[in-house]
């Protein structure tokens, strides 16, 4: 197992390099001088531009430039934001906890609700429950996440006043401890639900299909023949195996979910990496935009690795090669 994990960790290295190379290519595709991308449109003194040009070797051949770019990235130097007057890595690190909190909360809701709906649907295919679950999945799949977010604000925040419409904490009430946690939780509800609503669709469909398949297996019939209760058969026998594809797809789908998270954070002014990217877009702060993409991609690759390891733990049939 340790060797398997080590091998998978090593595989991350070329993938992370690929992310950096993709960025390098994009920066050089840009019209005009790459230095403009490195400083953003916030304006920089000619001296600083010259310094950057030298530091990133922009006066040297392209291959050398790529090498220098990779070196900088490997050292964690993703550039400097003139707008925020801070290093890109530092900026992103300060925003990461908020994004992680939102992502884990929404994932918990989406998985819990999605799997439950999927099991309920598979229990009686083509029943009313099943059709309702299909409709929920279809609607969730077709809704733009930023629109459902705006509607939830309109309904539950501005009209009914149940939840705050944005941010992560109430300004000017420096609540700490339990009260502070409660404050954050109140702010978390709407963005987490918004994002979960979109993402649970996949889980409903997948769990349903996977359950329907597993339910035809002999061991399920055996369990039923033994006289086990319906619930025990469904949850303890069938669901355990039916969840395996759900785990896999969660890994592959993380990248898509992150896209939704950027939009959701923007709608709710949730102070995570997504809002940071949004602010950077408004000010054409390219180092932050490019750096965020790089770091988030590597984070997604790592999370994917975690999911794969989890899969290996859950499924004893997997060989750790």
């Amino acid at each position, binding site marked *: 197992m340790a060797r398997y994990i080590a091998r998978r960790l090593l595989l991350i290295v070329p993938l992370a390099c690929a992310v950096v190379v*993709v960025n390098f290519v*994009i*920066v050089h595709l840009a019209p005009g001088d790459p230095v403009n991308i490195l400083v953003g449109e916030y304006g920089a003194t000619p001296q600083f531009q010259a310094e950057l040009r030298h530091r990133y070797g922009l006066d040297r051949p392209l291959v050398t430039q790529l090498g220098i770019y990779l070196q900088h990235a490997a050292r964690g130097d993703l550039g400097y934001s003139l707008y925020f007057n801070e290093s890109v890595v530092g900026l992103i690190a300060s925003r990461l906890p908020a994004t992680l909190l939102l992502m884990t909360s929404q994932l918990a809701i989406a998985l819990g609700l999605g799997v439950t709906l999927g099991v309920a649907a598979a229990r009686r295919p083509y029943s009313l429950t099943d059709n309702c679950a299909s409709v929920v999945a279809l609607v969730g799949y077709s809704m733009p996440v930023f629109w459902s977010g705006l509607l939830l*604000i309109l309904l539950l925040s501005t009209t009914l006043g149940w939840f705050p419409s944005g941010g992560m904490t109430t300004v000017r009430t420096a609540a700490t401890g339990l009260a502070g946690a409660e404050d954050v939780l109140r702010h978390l509800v709407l963005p987490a639900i918004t994002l979960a609503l979109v993402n649970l669709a996949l889980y409903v469909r997948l769990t349903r*299909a996977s359950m329907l398949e597993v339910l035809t297996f002999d061991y399920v019939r055996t369990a039923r023949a033994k006289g086990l209760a319906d619930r025990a058969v469904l949850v303890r026998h069938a669901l355990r195996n039916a969840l395996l594809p759900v785990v896999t797809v969660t890994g592959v789908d993380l990248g898509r979910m992150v896209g939704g998270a950027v939009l959701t954070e923007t709608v709710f002014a949730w102070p995570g990496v997504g809002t940071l990217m949004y602010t950077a877009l408004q000010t054409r702060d390219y180092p932050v935009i490019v750096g965020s993409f790089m770091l*988030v991609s590597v984070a997604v690759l790592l999370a994917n690795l975690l999911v794969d390891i989890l899969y290996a733990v859950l499924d004893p049939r997997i060989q750790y090669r």
Partner: protein
Amino acid sequence: MATTPTAPVAPRPPHQPRRRASVAGRFMRNRAADAGAVMLLVLLAAAALAGSLATGSAQSIESAPLAPPGPGHVFGTDDLGRDIWSGVVYGARVSLLVGVLAAVTSAVLGVLVGAAAGYYAGWPDDLLMRVTEFFLVIPTFLLAMVLVAVLRPSLWTIIAAIGVLGWPGTARLVRAEFLALREREFVMAARAIGHGTARIIFRQILPNAAPPVIVSTSLGVGAAILTEAGLSFLGLGDPNLVSWGLMLRNSREFLRQAWWMPTFPGLAIFVTVLSLNLVGDGLNDALNPRLRRTAG
């Protein structure tokens, strides 16, 4: 890298007789798919006739700002007094154009990559599949943001960015089909007669991969429309065009005063993507009757 996800495939309900019907017949019998097709036709008509359907210009100031829906302005007006109905109708053009062109770009790229990987197998396959998995796993929406931001937002950079990032799904489907068919007799026969590689790939094997490509492309149009709307919402839309995402972006500051500003453009996106998903699912069921999800 990620393990292959299991396609959501439900077994056929037991004792259900297999219908012998044409693809069109199966599609027509699927009421959800019909509803989707009708909605889609209405949307296409609206986009085509935008000029005469619009009750005013979507871009010029027409009347009182933030007027609620009522006679003259069925969907109300925005903060600058622009007619929202007209914006929604003109926005349909942008959304459908971007959606179709981006999805077709993705389909072409996916077919090329998938066909090359599946036909040649061996190391080209390994290499191409690693690249495919890479693009499948990384956050492509973020990459699209970077691309459009760096290349400057315009209709064409948006289509290119979405199209260039949407191909991995199609590539995997096409590759699977090619791997399954490359050793079959009809391919051997074509080779024996002396047909060229290109001819075998495109004329002999590819037609067999058409059904999954059609389905994934029709679902891809919806996904591309969602991405375009998301980009416009973040301020990465074409600055010279009215789009649904841009209208939603503008509505953010006026949620309290004008519920109609976010409601109608968002509804337009939702209905469009929903109809495309219904049609895509319907096509899937009609083209792959053995994998049918909905009861016949």
